[in-house]
């Protein structure tokens, strides 16, 4: 059985536990075991902490990497933000010996040493490469027939492309292909590759600007006839889900587009029930989507 160290981050365990459950259960269904990284912290958040002090950001990230190294397991994560931090920190430390030595001087004070022995993989990579969409297509027990999904890629899974190396950043297909393997269809919409608005510390300090971007994306998805929106990132997930409620409250809008995490959608197609996947715990009701699946 293949094993990965599951880096939880903040938002899944502390706001959307359904994402954590759906990820563990869906991956287990394919024989991938997700291990706890005991004592892991915030990745730390690339937007605020990275913008404040990249050095502190790097050393805390290195500590999280070391915890997984001690388990002899590669890391996987369900957040583009955590992925951005851990993948980039790992890349920088692996390619610069001086940087690695300096980081290890700091880590030595807490008895840790970074070796550079692991890879950081987004959960998308586990589904697309490790398991493979053909196998997913053959395994699903309840194809999501007739469901129109607007896919959101987020920014930091794909970009910067020099370090991520996942192909086209302007016309990616990896998530659309996942949706198709689950028996659903995807809708193309205007500015599909656009940011959700939350990153870079914008949500925490300039909420109205972040929400303005969110509204633009949701409008485009609705115009394209989407039944739901699928996210690959905990932070984008929060921004779209809570964000719709915030838009409704602040600007008297009436948004109610269900937001589903990619492993929740996978779990549904595997035949798991909405309740165990935490789909009743979102801010925006998922009722309309679930009715369509009955």
């Amino acid at each position: 059985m293949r094993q990965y160290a599951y880096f939880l981050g903040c938002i899944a365990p502390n706001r959307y536990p359904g994402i954590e459950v759906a990820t563990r259960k869906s991956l287990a269904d394919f024989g991938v075991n997700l291990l706890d990284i005991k004592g892991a912290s915030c990745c730390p958040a690339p937007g605020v902490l990275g913008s404040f002090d990249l050095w502190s950001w790097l050393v805390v990230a290195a500590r999280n990497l070391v915890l997984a190294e001690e388990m002899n397991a590669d890391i996987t994560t369900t957040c583009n933000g955590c992925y951005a931090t851990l993948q980039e920190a790992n890349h920088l430390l692996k390619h610069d010996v001086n940087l690695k030595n300096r980081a290890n001087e700091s880590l030595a004070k807490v008895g840790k040493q970074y070796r550079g022995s692991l890879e950081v993989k987004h959960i998308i990579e586990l589904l697309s490469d490790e398991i493979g969409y053909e196998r997913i297509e053959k395994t699903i027990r309840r194809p999501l027939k007739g469901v129109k999904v607007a896919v959101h890629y987020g920014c930091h899974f794909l970009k910067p492309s020099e370090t991520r190396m996942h192909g086209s950043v302007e016309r990616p297909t990896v998530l659309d292909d996942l949706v198709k393997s689950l028996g659903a269809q995807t809708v193309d919409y205007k500015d599909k590759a656009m940011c959700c608005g939350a990153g870079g510390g914008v949500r925490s300090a300039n909420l109205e600007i972040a929400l303005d971007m969110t509204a633009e994306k949701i409008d485009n998805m609705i115009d394209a006839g989407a039944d739901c929106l699928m996210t690959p990132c905990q932070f984008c997930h929060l921004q779209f889900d809570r964000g719709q409620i915030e838009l409704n409250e602040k600007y008297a809008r009436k948004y109610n587009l269900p937001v589903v995490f990619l492993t929740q959608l996978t779990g549904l197609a595997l035949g798991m029930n909405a309740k165990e996947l935490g789909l009743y715990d979102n801010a925006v009701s998922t009722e309309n989507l679930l009715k369509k699946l009955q």
Partner: protein
Amino acid sequence: MPSILKRQTIREGQRDFVEEVIDQGSKIFPRADMVTLRACIQCGTCTGSCPSGRRTAWRTRQIFLKTLTGERKEALSAEDLWNCTTCYTCQERCPRKVRTTDIVRALRNLAVKEGYMRQDHVRVCQIVLKYGHAVPINDEAKAIRQRLGLPELPPTVHQYPEALKEMIRILEETGFRALIERKE
């Protein structure tokens, strides 16, 4: 700001700031990436690609102009510097392969060193220094976790107080706490 950017402006202008930005970024990123700052030709592809620039006064090209012409205070104190969501669209599209987003991150680090920081961001940092998570657990999430069959606290620093101490010690060692808590 000069209305026309002349060759002389850069040659005779304050080059120190360009070097300072490159040095700051090179503490973490490869120097070869940071020196791409000098390759900017002010074409504006960055601004044209920017989702934040469509709705705010943030102009990526302009911050690079200010940086290249040595307008240190204007560049570092710009409130709009914090409207970049770091989506990397500009960096991907830059025809001169300038590491625009990474250079913005370096500029922000310098801005913070100068004391230009938003209180909302400071609050996020304080939360991390206290709980080890930027978004810590709350009662609602605890209840959901239990209902879904998960332990009340996740197996992170939330469940391991010694690990939290270790993480905070790192943030003290790197000078992060001092940066956040210093008195102006």
